[in-house]
């Protein structure tokens, strides 16, 4: 099982290196352990996150691709769907069949035909368009809903800070 997962992760790494999607860099932290990756996602244009880059860690289970990886941002990311500890809450990272809140389409959830690339692209579009239905960071969700200018100001300040400026 592990060799299936390793093989698949290696293939995905290769694909993401030779043909990386715009604004995404991803690969294993070390090739000695293909089950821990680090990705960098650029803030989507036209969103308050524009100009920022956000590192995240992906941890793959041994039975990948049957089960999805978990993803955690390694930077402060003030976003309705990102927990304050960095964990990302997005349907594509939810195992098939496991739907605690009963509002996700089965097609949105993880299945082995998805990929790291699709996860990262989904997360990128989630960053641009928060999903108000399942807030992981309740305070950020409320600010996003009720005080948008303040939300954007805070995000922009965080982006600037994260670049060491």
């Amino acid at each position: 099982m592990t060799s299936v997962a390793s093989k698949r992760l290696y293939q995905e790494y290769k694909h993401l290196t030779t043909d990386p999607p715009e604004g995404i860099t991803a690969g294993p932290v070390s090739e000695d352990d293909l089950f821990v990756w680090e990705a960098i996602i650029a803030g989507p244009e036209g969103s308050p996150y524009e100009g920022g880059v956000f590192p995240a860690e992906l941890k793959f289970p041994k039975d990948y691709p049957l089960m999805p990886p978990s993803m955690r941002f390694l930077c402060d990311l003030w976003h309705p769907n990102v927990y304050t500890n960095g964990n990302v809450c997005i349907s594509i990272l939810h195992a098939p069949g496991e739907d605690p809140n009963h509002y996700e389409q089965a097609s949105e959830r993880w299945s082995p035909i998805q990929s790291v690339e699709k996860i990262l692209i989904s997360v990128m579009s989630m960053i641009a368009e928060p999903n108000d239905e399942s807030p992981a960071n309740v305070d950020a969700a409320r600010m996003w809903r009720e005080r948008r200018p303040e939300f954007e100001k805070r995000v922009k300040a965080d982006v600037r800070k994260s670049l060491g400026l």
Partner: protein
Amino acid sequence: MAESQTSINIPQILAVAIVGFFAIRWFLNKPASASAPPASSSSRGGRQVDVTKINQVTSMFPQLDRRAIAWDLQRNGGSVAATTERVLGGRGLDNPPPSFQPNIPAQETASGSSSGVQKRGAPGQPDLITRYNLQGRISGKGKEAEPSEEERMKSAWSADKAARAENLKRRREEMILAARRKMEAKEGQA
């Protein structure tokens, strides 16, 4: 004759044993159940909510007020799952009445229900320049333009493991430095 006597005795002995068993049990339980009501009423009066449960919820949602968590736990009968569900459902926790003053020790790590300014610094992630040790490469105040880098980023798959790791590291660093350069340029214009 003897047979009929034993057949009478065995049910009698059994009956005595059963009655005796229940009698002893009743006596043994009596003191415990007599002391139970005062204990539970004192816990109700003292607003005792399990601190470990509050800590569990706090560790998931550090932004929440510990008193509000205690209040919600008390009302739902101490179910961490129910409180978590409630928060995740976006309903939030009700504000506890002022009279509700549980005896909850502040958690060592969290600063509890302090101001938003304090919370903001709490995760305390270093900036990306520090994180990826890029201080040495930003000395030129972002003036060191590296135009050819864009082309080099689309590098091919190397057969060598070390070269691949190096390539990935370089792409990662360049992405961060490029973002910084861009941001600096944008601010320079403004």
